């Protein structure tokens, strides 16, 4: 196998593997297959004809089009570039091919990078760039077998130096180069599968999968003291349409009047998602307003829920402002917004009673007047009816799931109880809806933020009270109050022990331990670095250089001083560098030449700095013919020393001194 092929083949895979997760499986197999063919053709020295290569390219491009549905998106563009690179490995026969291959990899690398947002990728990036430039270092030795000789060792040292010098320069440019906002010119991005799929629909039991998956969703950092765990209801979306037990999302009317106002704000929190997706924004109750930092557009889904469609593969970042309603003075109490008939119809929608015949009968038998009564009655039913809470309740009878849950199995998750309670309220003529999102989160004491994972997924009910408006009621508190008080950490503990001392001891110990603390600390460091790095934009840059205070004249003075200091540091560095390179010293030859010129100056002559010994000799012989022998001796001696490295300077110096 040729060296150049080996290097490029490795380079191709080095540039692909770290991003394999972003590549679709089909395209991954395609690239693997073609690279295998390329490897075989290289090993057996069977070159594929140009027609076959073109055919391969065409068919593969078509496959990529089929896979992504377009060739104009970022993902398909990157896949095409990767395909081009692997096809190029078939025809690596000259230095020019090597350069072309490098350019393709360079382009595809940035394409890949635009699909990830992780700090550790910087290390991967440096590794790939090292691998990219290594073959270039030997571009002059193309086709030559390399030996581990003196020059290759020195070459390696230069290579290391180049990277060592480049990295601080990169850091400097990263922070200092002005990031003028260019606007949103994006390639289309293939829509990602919405990982928070449960916000569109829940079929009781499906939330269990999200909880057990336990994947990371987002981190929320509060300005000031964070609210207690049981107040952390992260509202995702409103599910208002039911078929009796399952619920799905329906665009509900927004009650927002005019612009958001930033008054009576109780909690301010910054949320950083941990995944790429078009996703709802999760806010605490009483949302006042929000600021979206990532690039995308937000759609109002109604009832203070919003959904963001990202312009590109970017993790969603936003800041939420939640507060409390203004307390009205007595006598001046405004009535809550009244639901229109259309809204009422929406929130009272129920399937025919044949879907849940038993439950329908039971609810008729247990009719109530208002929400308070309904809550009391239903909570008693749940608490005393032999119900239990489980992450694995199993599937309900497909024909009458609600009846099966409520009267037979009596085991379920938050979504089961929320669904049943919401249906019950609707049978009683009380508008209700199921809200899905998260409850709680793991608090990191080192970073003062909540880490919300799939285990925190939750569903609860919002019911309309004619006096107070929409009110949150969580039926889970009637069956598993520890879930609300302690969060998702109770899941690992036996339900039978919830009242025991062992349970509370176990709860108190979950956040302790050296390993746990170290994990918290590592998470804080990584999260902060990651968010600072990824969120470093024009505003962050301005903030970084805010100490300069460029609005005032003093700011410019500071800038000037800094520039001068920078120049001084650069100058000192340069002098040290030159000294080290031996350029700061006069050579013995130069010293003798200075002496010689001085002597001639004293005689009234002038030797140009640009003259060589031969020219000097002819000049001196013409100007001072009486000493022509001396000039000949000195000039020839200098010539011999300089060009032939013969003789010693001492002899010439003595001759010059005698002049």
């Amino acid at each position, binding site marked *: 196998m040729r060296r150049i092929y080996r290097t490029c083949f490795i380079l191709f895979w080095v540039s692909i593997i770290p991003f394999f997760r972003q590549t679709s499986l089909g395209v991954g197999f395609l690239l693997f297959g073609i690279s295998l063919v390329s490897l075989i053709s290289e090993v057996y020295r069977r070159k594929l004809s140009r027609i076959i290569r073109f055919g391969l390219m065409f068919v593969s491009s078509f496959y990529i089009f089929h896979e992504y549905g377009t060739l104009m998106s970022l993902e398909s563009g990157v896949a095409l570039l990767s395909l081009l690179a692997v096809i190029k490995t078939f025809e690596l026969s000259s230095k020019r091919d090597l*350069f072309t291959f490098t350019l393709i990899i360079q382009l595809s690398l940035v394409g890949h990078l*635009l699909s990830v*947002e992780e700090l550790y990728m910087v290390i991967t990036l440096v590794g790939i760039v090292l691998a990219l430039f290594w073959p270039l270092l030997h571009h002059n030795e193309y086709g030559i077998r390399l030996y581990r000789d003196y020059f290759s060792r020195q070459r390696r040292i230069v290579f290391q130096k180049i990277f060592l*010098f480049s990295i601080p320069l*990169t850091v400097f440019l990263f922070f200092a180069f002005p990031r003028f906002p260019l606007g949103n010119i994006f390639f289309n991005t293939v829509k990602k599968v919405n990982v928070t799929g449960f916000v569109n629909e829940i079929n009781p039991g499906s939330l269990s999968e999200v909880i057990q998956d336990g994947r990371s969703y987002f981190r929320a950092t509060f300005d000031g003291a964070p609210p207690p765990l049981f107040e952390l209801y992260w509202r995702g979306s409103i599910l208002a349409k039911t078929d009796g037990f399952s619920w799905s999302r329906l665009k509900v009317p927004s009650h927002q009047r005019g612009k958001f106002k930033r008054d009576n704000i109780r909690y301010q929190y910054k949320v950083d998602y941990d995944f790429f997706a078009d996703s709802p924004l999760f806010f605490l109750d009483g949302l006042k307003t929000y600021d979206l930092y990532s690039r995308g557009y937000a759609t109002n889904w109604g009832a203070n829920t919003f959904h963001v469609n990202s312009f590109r593969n970017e993790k969603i970042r936003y800041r939420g402002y939640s507060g409390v309603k203004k307390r009205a003075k007595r006598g001046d109490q405004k009535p809550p917004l009244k639901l229109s008939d259309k809204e009422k119809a929406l929130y009272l929608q129920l399937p025919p009673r044949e879907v849940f015949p038993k439950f329908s009968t039971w609810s008729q038998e247990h009719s109530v007047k208002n929400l308070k009564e309904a809550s009391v009655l239903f909570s008693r039913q749940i608490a005393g009816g032999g119900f239990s809470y489980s992450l694995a309740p199993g599937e309900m009878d497909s024909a009458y799931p609600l009846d099966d849950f409520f009267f037979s199995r009596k085991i379920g998750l938050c979504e089961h109880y929320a669904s049943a309670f919401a249906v019950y309220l609707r049978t009683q003529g009380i508008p209700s809806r199921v809200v899905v999102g998260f409850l709680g989160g793991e608090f990191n004491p080192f970073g003062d933020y909540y880490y919300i994972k799939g285990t925190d997924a939750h569903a609860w009910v919002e019911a309309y009270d004619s006096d107070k408006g929409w009110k949150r009621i969580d039926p889970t508190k009637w069956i598993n109050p520890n879930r609300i008080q302690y969060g998702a950490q109770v899941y690992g503990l036996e339900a039978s022990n919830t009242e025991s001392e062992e349970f509370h001891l176990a709860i108190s110990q979950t956040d302790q331990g050296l390993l746990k603390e170290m994990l918290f600390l590592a998470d804080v460091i990584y999260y902060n670095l990651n968010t600072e790095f990824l969120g470093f934009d024009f505003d962050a840059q301005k903030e970084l250089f805010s100490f300069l205070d460029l609005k005032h004249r003093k700011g410019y003075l500071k800038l000037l001083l800094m520039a001068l200091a920078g120049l001084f540091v650069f100058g000192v560095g340069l002098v040290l560098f030159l000294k080290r390179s031996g350029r700061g010293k*006069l050579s013995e030859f130069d010293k003798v030449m200075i002496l010689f010129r001085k002597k001639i100056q004293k005689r009234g002559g002038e030797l140009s*700095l640009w003259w060589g010994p*031969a020219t000097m000799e002819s000049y001196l012989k013409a100007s001072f013919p009486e000493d022509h022998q001396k000039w000949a001796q000195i000039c020839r001696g200098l010539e011999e020393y300089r060009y032939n490295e013969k003789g010693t300077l001492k002899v010439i110096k003595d001759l010059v001194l005698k002049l």
Partner: protein
Amino acid sequence: MLDKGKKLDIHERLFTMIKRWQAPYGRVYILPTSFGLYFIATTFLLFLMSLSYGHSLAFTCTFLFSSLIIVSAHFTNFNLYHLKVKDGVRPGYGILGENEVGHIEVGNQSSKVRFDLNISLPLSSQEFKGQVLGQTKRPVSIKGKDSQVIGLAFSDLKRGCYRLERVKISSSFPFGLFEAWTYHSFTPREYWIFPRPMSDKTIHTKVFEEVKKLKSRDEEYENLSSLFIEGNDSFYEHSLYQEGGNLKRMDWKIYARTHLMYEKKYSDAITKKISLKRKSLEIILPDLEDQLSFLTAQILSFQERHIEFSLVLDDESPLFGAGHDFVIESLKRLALYKNRGSDS
């Protein structure tokens, strides 16, 4: 007085410093290569993408590429510093058709290695329009505080006298993104390319056979046969060695005893004086280049055997001579020779 002297000293030092930066190493020029241009253009495209997406990782990647471009430009530039080229190309003349017709010595005064140097030597000639470029076959690396004799190969070279004025040293080390080059001026001098000597085999096949055919024509044969007299190896006398003499014929025994350099003279060198007449060759070698090639071979052979000869190219009167200088002079005449008939 002291002040003046001091000022002068500073002045000198300053000038020497300037000279050290400029003159000995020449001014170094640098430009991106075609690949470098594409690379820079791609990096700029990446920069625009990074700005558009506001993506920190893409920015990091772009700035890393930019830094590498800047730093590699610096290394490419400094790779040509502290190089010294020995004045002239040795040996000052070359033979047409040889792979490496000249050698140049390049010294590295720095303690750092100088990588992948390409030496190109433009030869200008008044006789032939344009330039002939001599180049190294492969980039050369030179260790720190070392020098290297580098062979130069020329393309489209013709016999004649060329003018050497400067040598170009270039390098695209480390990544081929930039090419830096510098010129080192020579003391203006001539560089000769002599005709290629005809090989023994060609002489036998092409010339001898023709000569044998001409045996019947006595006059022409007599003229030609004088060119091919075999050497007579019988010792004649000792003579004091002169510069350009054949070292193979040095009597080392005498040298060992007396430290005097004596050369053995053989009878052929004493007795024979050969006149090389180009015109007499026209019958067997109608092509002028063949004639000159044959004559070159004969001259070199005579030099080796220390035979006195004269070179008559047209109708000039013969001038006999021997030794290195005479041989070089004769070869120069061959190198410059143009057939008057063909000119007209």
